[in-house]
């Protein structure tokens, strides 16, 4: 955190000054470790084992916050008799179908509650990968992803039968105990390479610092998400924090540190294939032929997601305005349909196969920033046309001229048919707009000056591109063009470049009703009387005022600072904050007072907006058949869930299991210590000759490597490697290795090393440092290599791209790539040039037995 989010880290230092204990868990020692009380070095890709060990500690010693757990979680919910755990099936849950490599999730549901979660897409058996018998069959690229469930998650058919004593053998609490029983301190030490005493010390620290009087926060970044078990890593932390009563309370939570100015916004107002704004799913061609089927699984369920029709209709009204009427399903048929995976790695697959023709890159540099950079570049070299919008000439704009494959002879400039448009982009200082930061805060940034020469904002580009296309299609009678012709696309423009008004776009996202701007999402209606381009942002333009531009100085308001910018939803700063009070509405303790029921005012009071209906009393009991928010009792804080509870056990919503289970990364130096099942049984492999996976425990690729950021650079480097200051501060690509590994492989400090995987070989300066420690795993030493991934061939500070080493191996729920744990070899000296480079990589593959004759 101190490295990649230094200014955010000031609050950790502040907490430390006030007596908080700081523990840092990471494969490498960083500036964060230097300021922490404790640094625990772990093997990359073993987080579930570690967190599972902590969960087991809490359960074994009964250190859970029992009043919170029984009131606010599904600990007492009774599960079905058919459910079988990984304890029973050696690392698999019930419902696994080896023929399709997927789960039938029906047995994971609550007992006596109908299983209503929609079926996932049609799946097909695929050939096992090149690696051999340990790798099972898996789903191909036709599968649906969990994000299609939208922000309410998968639905459950109602509230479960509950044993409040938590003694029933099939209640969640007991299942949890059994599931995590084998995550003992000794097992954690063996898998993660940590010291038992240190682990126990950390376990004691977090349990002693949780409960009525105290809370513990977990902070994570892509070190948890970029794994084939990414979603389950976060689930592990959710279980731990719910058991300890650390959700919805001040000083608690699981805090994602996101790495880009508006990456949260890019998810909320998604440029993601499977989502529409506000986490509404994109319609599926087979499951959602009309709007009724689109909302069927969720409409009328308990919790706020039960209002999905109002959110969807308001979006369609924002898109197609007066053309969207009840009689035509609000132009639902104007939405294109999905039939499986259309994600970014699928895009590359299509490009390689010649199906992808045109490609827009808007401030993104996949040639350096995505896993297996070579496939990214080969894909782009196979396009008809490419539009790159950036402030600088990034590698993705120049691969046809000077990319690594030109040097190796794998590509020839004069044989690359891709037509490339490079359009210079405006900077943040040259445009109005909002970024949504990592804590869901929409912050407006004002334009200071006009962009230079032909540089323009992306708002300008997309508005005018749409305008030109609409003009060209204005006279078309083809029904295909109707969604374009009917699109609401008249934004006021201003200034010398006819810049569209960002404020007008923000107002559209916020939404309008018959009486003007809406003040919040509870006002949205399903009858077409309201519009809102992103229901969770509804209210950011309340009273016709840009709330994101609010700038009350922090020194002039409460510590919660509600007068600075605007948080979605409804300017609430801590989600699920109803849980900061006990079921009767009293703070759990004076020390952790945040929200409470004010009996006199008959409403919830506190320094934040309640993430709950403001006037629903703690003793409210819903009518038997009540739906949406009316179905939630006054003591059910998890208002998006159909049972109002925090889920220790996920009865629906995940494809790879209702509980997190330790699986090894796809490329691992060791077999799985806990189960016969080696890796996530349904991870999504990427079959391509250029994407071979390494054997497990391979002496050809014996070392673990992980990638990360440096303070002085930013992601794929387009905003940092091109700047003199930052290039001077951190001038060269390097790898971090321990003194022991340096001795083992003859690596010299400040000398060169070549790092080899089955995908590529790269060179880096060697940094021999104690910051990377050799770990003892399953009785032997495992070395890790650390690689910052910022470099590429362009800019002021140049170097090889670490991501070129990575395979594409995807997490099954959200399709994120496993880029934080893989294996490699490292050897002294620079890498070969020209054709000798792919030859070296092939030689390694042959030695490892993964080279096929067809490649």
């Amino acid at each position, binding site marked *: 955190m101190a490295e990649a*989010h230094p*200014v955010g880290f000031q609050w950790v230092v502040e907490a430390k000054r006030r007596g908080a204990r700081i523990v840092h868990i990471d494969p490498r020692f960083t500036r964060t470790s230097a300021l922490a009380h404790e640094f625990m070095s772990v093997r990359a890709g073993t987080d579930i084992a570690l967190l599972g060990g902590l969960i087991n500690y809490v359960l074994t010693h009964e250190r859970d916050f029992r009043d919170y757990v029984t009131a606010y979680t599904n600990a007492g919910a009774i599960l079905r008799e058919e459910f079988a755990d990984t304890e029973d099936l050696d690392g698999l849950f019930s419902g696994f179908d080896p023929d399709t490599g997927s789960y039938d999730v029906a047995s994971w549901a609550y007992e006596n509650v109908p299983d209503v979660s929609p079926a996932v897409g049609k799946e097909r058996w695929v050939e096992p990968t090149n690696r051999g018998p340990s790798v099972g069959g898996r789903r191909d690229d036709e599968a649906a992803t969990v994000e299609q469930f939208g922000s309410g998650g998968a639905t459950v058919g109602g509230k479960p039968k509950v044993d409040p004593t938590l003694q029933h053998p099939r209640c969640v609490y007991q299942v949890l105990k059994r599931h995590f029983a084998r995550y003992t301190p000794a097992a954690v030490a063996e898998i993660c390479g940590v010291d038992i005493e240190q682990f126990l010390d950390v376990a004691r620290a977090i349990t002693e610092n949780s409960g009525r009087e105290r809370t513990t926060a977990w902070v994570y970044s892509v070190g948890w998400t970029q794994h084939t078990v990414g979603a389950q890593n976060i689930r592990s932390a959710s279980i731990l924090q719910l058991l300890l009563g650390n959700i919805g309370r001040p000083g608690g939570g699981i805090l994602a540190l996101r790495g*880009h*100015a508006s990456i949260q*916004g*890019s998810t909320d*107002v998604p*440029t*993601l*294939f499977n989502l529409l704004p506000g986490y509404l799913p994109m319609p599926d*061609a*087979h499951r959602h032929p009309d709007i009724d089927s689109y909302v069927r699984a969720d409409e009328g369920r308990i919790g706020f997601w039960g209002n999905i029709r109002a959110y969807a209709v308001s979006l369609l009204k924002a898109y197609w305005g007066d053309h969207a009427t009840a009689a035509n399903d609000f132009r639902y048929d104007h939405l294109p349909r999905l*039939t499986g995976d259309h994600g*970014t790695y699928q895009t590359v697959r299509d490009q390689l196969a010649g199906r992808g*023709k045109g*490609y827009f890159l*808007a*401030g993104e540099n996949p040639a350096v920033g995505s896993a297996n950079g070579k496939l990214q570049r080969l894909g782009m070299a196979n396009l008809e*046309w490419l539009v790159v919008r950036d402030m600088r000439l990034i590698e993705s704009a120049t691969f046809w001229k000077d990319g690594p494959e030109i040097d190796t002879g794998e590509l020839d400039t*004069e044989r690359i048919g891709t*037509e*490339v*448009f*490079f*359009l*210079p982009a405006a*900077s*943040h*200082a040259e*445009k109005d*707009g909002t*970024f949504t*930061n*990592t804590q869901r*805060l929409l*912050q407006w*940034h*004002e334009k*200071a*000056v006009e962009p*230079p020469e*032909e*540089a323009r*904002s992306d*708002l300008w580009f997309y*508005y005018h591109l749409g305008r030109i*296309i609409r003009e060209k299609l204005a006279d078309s009678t083809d029904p295909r063009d109707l*969604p*374009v012709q009917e699109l609401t696309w008249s934004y006021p423009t201003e200034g010398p470049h006819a810049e569209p008004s960002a404020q007008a776009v*923000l107002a559209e996202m916020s939404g309008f009703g018959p009486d003007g701007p809406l003040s919040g999402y509870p006002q949205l209606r399903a009858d077409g009387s309201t519009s809102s*381009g992103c229901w969770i*942002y509804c209210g950011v333009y309340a009273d016709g005022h840009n709330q994101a531009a609010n*700038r009350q100085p922090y020194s002039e*308001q409460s510590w919660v600072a509600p007068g600075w910018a605007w948080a979605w939803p409804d300017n609430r700063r801590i989600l699920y904050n109803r849980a900061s009070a006990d079921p009767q509405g009293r703070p759990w303790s004076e020390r952790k007072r945040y929200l409470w029921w004010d009996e006199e005012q008959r409403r919830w009071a506190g320094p934040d907006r309640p993430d709950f209906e403001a006037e629903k009393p703690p003793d409210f009991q819903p009518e038997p058949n009540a739906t949406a928010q009316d179905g939630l009792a006054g003591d059910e804080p998890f208002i998006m869930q159909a049972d109002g509870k925090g889920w220790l056990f996920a009865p629906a919503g995940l494809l790879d299991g209702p509980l997190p289970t330790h699986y090894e990364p796809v490329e691992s130096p060791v077999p799985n210590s806990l189960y016969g099942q080696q890796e996530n049984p349904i991870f999504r492999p990427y079959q391509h000759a250029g994407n071979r996976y390494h054997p497990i425990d391979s002496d050809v690729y014996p070392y673990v490597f992980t990638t990360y950021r440096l303070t002085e*650079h*930013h992601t794929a480097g387009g905003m940092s490697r*091109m700047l003199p*200051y*930052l290039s001077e*501060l951190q001038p060269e690509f390097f790898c971090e290795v321990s003194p022991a590994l340096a001795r083992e492989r003859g690596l010299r400090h400040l000398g060169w090393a070549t790092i080899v995987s089955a995908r590529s070989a790269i060179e880096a300066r060697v940094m021999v440092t104690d910051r990377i420690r050799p770990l003892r795993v399953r009785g032997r030493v495992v070395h890790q290599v650390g690689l910052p991934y910022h470099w590429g061939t362009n800019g002021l500070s140049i170097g090889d791209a670490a991501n070129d080493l990575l395979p594409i191996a995807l997490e099954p729920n959200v399709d994120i790539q496993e880029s934080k744990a893989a294996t490699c070899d490292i050897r002294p000296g620079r890498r070969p040039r020209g054709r000798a480079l792919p030859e070296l990589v092939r030689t390694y593959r042959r030695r490892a037995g993964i080279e096929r004759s067809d490649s």
Partner: protein
Amino acid sequence: MRRWLNKWPLFRQLTGSDRLGLGSAVQSGRSRQMRARTENAEKVAKSICPYCAVGCGQRIFVSNGTITQIEGDSDSPISRGRLCPKGSASKQLVTSPTRERWVRYRRPYATDWEYLPLDTAMDMIADRVIETRERTWQKTDEAGAPVQRTEGIASLGGAALDNEENYLMKKLYTALGAVQIENQARI
């Protein structure tokens, strides 16, 4: 004598009110005359740092239509005026000569860039979109279900895009039937 001694910064530091030597004690005649370039700014825009997602407040100082300084916003409850090395370098992000200011165009199979006016480029891109969309249009999938889309056009955006930009992108692409619309947020 005292006047002579007072010319000596260390003496002033030890005897005056500026014991840390951060202000008047260390000023010379020349530095007393110097003014911060932010002092005469004709405009201070309130902005947000474009790098990571902490969302530190920035103040952008403008004189004569150009940016003279970008520094932390001390009002922000998030950053309290601080910026990290990247945030502190953001003036260079905006003003450094490494920045591209003109459209570049590479013809198929060409070995180098050429120039293209922005309006021409916009028109050509619009034509490419319309033509590719028409050629790759899918009315139904293999099973006959309506899909009304194209898989011939894809997009990958960075996560320093404004919400308003993402909104127009998704809206336009969706109306065009382009579904392979992705963002750094997946990666």
